[in-house]
C-alpha cells in the first residue's frame, strides 16, 4: 500500500469573487496535490486549469461581484483529482466560445481559458446551464 492511498481530500471550499481569495484557494489545493504525490506535470496542469476555472467564475460568471461566491469541490486522492467549480452567474454555452487557435483569433488577447483547461486536464465537463465545470486529472 502506498502512503498516498491513506490520504484523500474531499472538501468543499467557498470563496468570494475575489482574485486574492482565489489565489489562496489554489495554494491550498496545490499543497494537497503535492502531498498526495502528484508529479510536477500533473501539478502544473491542475494549477493552470484551476486558475482558469476560478478566473472565469469570478470575472465572467459572477462579474467580479464580491457578494457572489464561487464554490470549489475538491475530491483528490493519490490516483485522481476531481475539481468542480461553481459560480452564481446565469451560465453560458461553452460551445459559443470561438476557437482561439483559428487564424482570425490568434492575436486576440482573450478566449483561451477553456481551451487550456481541456488541453491540460483529462476530462472537462460543463453543466447544461454552464455555471459549473467539473475537471478531472489522473495522476500518471
Amino acid at each position: 500500500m502506498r502512503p498516498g492511498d491513506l490520504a484523500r481530500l474531499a472538501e468543499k471550499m467557498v470563496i468570494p469573487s475575489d482574485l486574492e481569495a482565489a489565489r489562496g484557494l489554489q495554494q491550498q489545493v496545490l499543497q494537497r496535490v503535492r502531498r498526495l504525490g502528484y508529479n510536477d506535470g500533473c501539478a502544473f496542469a491542475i494549477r493552470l486549469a484551476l486558475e482558469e476555472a476560478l478566473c472565469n467564475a469570478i470575472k465572467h460568471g459572477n462579474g467580479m461581484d464580491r457578494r457572489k461566491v464561487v464554490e470549489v469541490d475538491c475530491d483528490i486522492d493519490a490516483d485522481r483529482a476531481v475539481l468542480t467549480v461553481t459560480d452564481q452567474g446565469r451560465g453560458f454555452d461553452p460551445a459559443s466560445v470561438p476557437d482561439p487557435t483559428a487564424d482570425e483569433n490568434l492575436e486576440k488577447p482573450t478566449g483561451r481559458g477553456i481551451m487550456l483547461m481541456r488541453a491540460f486536464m483529462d476530462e472537462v465537463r460543463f453543466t447544461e446551464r454552464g455555471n459549473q465545470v467539473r475537471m478531472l486529472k489522473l495522476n500518471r
Partner: protein
Amino acid sequence: MPERSPRLKVSIEGRVTVVELIDKKILDEMSISQIGEQVNALVARSDSPAMVVDFSNVGNMSSSALGMLITLHKRIREKNGQLALCCIQPGIYEVFAITRLNEIFRICSTRQEAIESLN
C-alpha cells in the same frame, strides 16, 4: 494595503531593454495587470522599442498572461519595434504551442540569442 513586491528586473543591453520576470508565482491573474502596466510603460518611453522578456523564473502560466503578452506585442509592433521571449521552460512552452502563440512570438532559447535577434 499589501506592499507591492517588485515583479520585474529591467536592464539595458545596447538598444535592447531586457525585462526579467522575477517571481515564480508572478503570472497569475492578480499579478498580470501590474506587470502589464509596468512593461507597457517601458514601451511608451521608446520610439522604436526592442524588448526581450526573460522567462527564466516563470514556473506558472495563465491565459491572462498570454493576453498581456499579446497586447504588449501589438503595442511594440505599432511603434515599429520588436519583441522576443526567452528562457521558457518546457511546460510553459507547451502552453504557447497548444495555443499556437509560438507562431506569433519570437521565442529564443537564451537571453543572448534573443538580444542578438533584435540587433
